[in-house]
């Protein structure tokens, strides 16, 4: 150490700093969750769904939400208007006309898609959201501060907020029945009750295989697209339909994951704290120049 020259000292310190920067860089880019190959999903075949809305009923019962008797769900007049999931109904079924047959309207179940790269998770500033190994995207109520960033971030506009509750309002959305069912290897409530098995629960990979097979066998029945296979980086819930998804009120989305944009901006702003420091340095510089000017002016006045 005694022989250490000035040149050597600069070299080693530069190496150490660059190494630490490199390491921190890596740890920041790593995902907060690992996508399991065996993650589960649900395939919704909208050509099979009969619009009986039993899934809506089962969902409410499962999540202790107030509901009317099961017979009241036979009322098809609710289809007159398009509904969205909210804090009182985590899943809803809508109806769209079938161009080829009046007798077979197209029914589409709507709920959280459980994205592979969830925007809600990345937007949450307190890290309340988590993507589980089985594919479920859930949130921790105890951590939630009610900022509702997740609602803004979601490309499907799914998370709902209990606006009517004055005390302890909570975020509400489909939780894949994680706590009570899917974490224990059971089926989600909606899948279990569906009489026609229009919604199939299984490994996401198997579901995609099955869906491809269906499209191949019945090319007239389906359009050649599985919604959710690539949309916003892939979702756990996948859809088959006989009509373009955009006509069934599915959002038009690219293949890039939604968090990509927001994360890039956020991480850009706060990367290694350089931009804030630079900003303060700039402001400090301006102040210093101004101070100098003022002192010079004062000297001149004197």
């Amino acid at each position, binding site marked *: 150490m005694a022989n250490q020259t000035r040149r050597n000292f600069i070299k080693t310190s530069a190496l150490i700093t660059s190494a630490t920067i490199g390491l921190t860089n890596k740890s920041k880019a790593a995902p907060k969750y690992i996508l399991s190959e065996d993650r589960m999903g649900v395939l919704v075949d909208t050509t099979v769904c009969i619009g009986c809305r039993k899934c809506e009923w089962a969902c409410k019962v499962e999540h202790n939400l107030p509901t009317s008797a099961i017979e009241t769900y036979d009322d098809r007049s609710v289809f007159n208007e398009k509904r969205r999931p909210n804090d009182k109904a985590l899943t809803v079924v809508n109806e769209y006309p079938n161009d080829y047959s009046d007798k077979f309207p197209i029914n589409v179940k709507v709920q959280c898609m459980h994205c592979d790269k969830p925007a809600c998770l990345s937007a949450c500033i307190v890290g309340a959201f988590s993507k589980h190994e089985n594919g479920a995207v859930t949130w921790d109520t105890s951590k939630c501060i009610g900022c509702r960033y997740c609602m803004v971030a979601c490309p499907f506009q799914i998370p709902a907020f209990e606006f009517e509750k004055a005390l302890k309002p909570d975020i509400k959305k489909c939780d894949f029945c994680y706590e009570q069912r899917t974490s224990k290897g059971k089926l989600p409530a909606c*899948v279990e009750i569906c*009489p026609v098995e229009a919604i199939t629960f299984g490994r996401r990979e198997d579901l995609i295989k099955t869906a491809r097979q269906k499209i191949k066998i019945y090319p007239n029945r389906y359009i050649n697209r599985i919604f959710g296979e690539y949309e916003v980086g892939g979702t756990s819930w996948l859809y088959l339909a006989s009509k373009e998804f955009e006509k069934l009120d599915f959002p038009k989305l690219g293949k890039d994951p939604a968090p990509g944009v927001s994360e890039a901006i956020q991480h850009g702003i706060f990367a290694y704290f350089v931009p804030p420091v630079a900003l303060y340095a700039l402001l400090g510089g301006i102040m210093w120049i101004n101070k100098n000017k003022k002192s010079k002016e004062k000297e001149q006045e004197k």
Partner: protein
Amino acid sequence: MKKFVLFIFVLPLLIYSQTKINVNHKYQELKCKTCHSCDIPTKEKPCLIECPRDKMVSVTQKPEDGPEILTINKIKFENDLYKPVTFTHRLHAEMSDMAGGCKMCHHYNPPGKIIGCIDCHQIERNRIDISKPDLKGAYHQQCMNCHRQWSGKVECESCHELNSSQKSENQKTINSSKKMHPKIEVPAIIKYETPKTKGNLVLFLHNEHIKTFSLDCQNCHSNESCNKCHYKFNPKPEKLKSTLEKHLKCSNCHNTKSNCSFCHSNNPQREFNHFARTGFDISNYHVKLTCQRCHIEKGKFTGLVSDCSSCHGVWSKSNFKHTVVGLQLDETHNEFDCTECHQEKNYKRPGCKNCHEDKTYPKEKPGKLVKK
């Protein structure tokens, strides 16, 4: 001991001789469809149904052969909301007669015995193989496909009773077992009026098509919904079809792109005449045969050679009884080979010139006339 061994050997012979089966099963009291799955079995393609065939119900049989009523109770869970369905199988089978037959529900059934839904569709919904729906899904998908067309209703209670209801199941079973679909009348001739100016009439000889081509209803009437006849829930007329769609049923066998006048005319058509159309007279000896006996390939009615030998092989004294044609040959002529007199390949008129210079047929006959 020796006697006993001998007896053992002889016994099967004794039994065999007593129960000798008539080898030519054509004359046994058997339905063809009991053993053969296709309409025209040939030596090359016998299309045999798997054994055991006795009392076996296959997809090619009639509604009466199936069960009358079934209670669908294969899927049961602790907290079921609804009671199992009492399914009037016979009634539904009768209804499906005009829409695709047994195969409509018993799809992908291998040749032979009808297998139940449960043999392919798993009871457990939480399963690894998700390539086909589970049993509950399979049942409902089959039912809903028609029920939605029929009434558009999807209420559970149109088929199920609530588990809490007190109605006894037996009553419903008794009521529904009496139901029968009325026999569908088969029209003899259907007259179509078309907008075509040249030949606006098409006379469809419905009965004749069935008879001559030995057709089942499902050969033409497939995927027909109940609403085709029942307007209860579907009062409005069907949308106008394109020319292609209108001719779809006929174009399976007829060339509908050209030769319009074959079916379209201003005057009603006459019945089918094999001789006038093809030059081969079938009115004498082949009148009792179904078309498929000769026209083996389904839908193909051209390209057959009218030589007798193309179907019958080479005739000789040993395999042809001449009395069949109404003429018993006298002793002299009976000795000859067929070709001595019948030089033509169609064995029509005999030529006498080879031996007799002064005699001609039919003025003089080589034997005496007998009843055919």
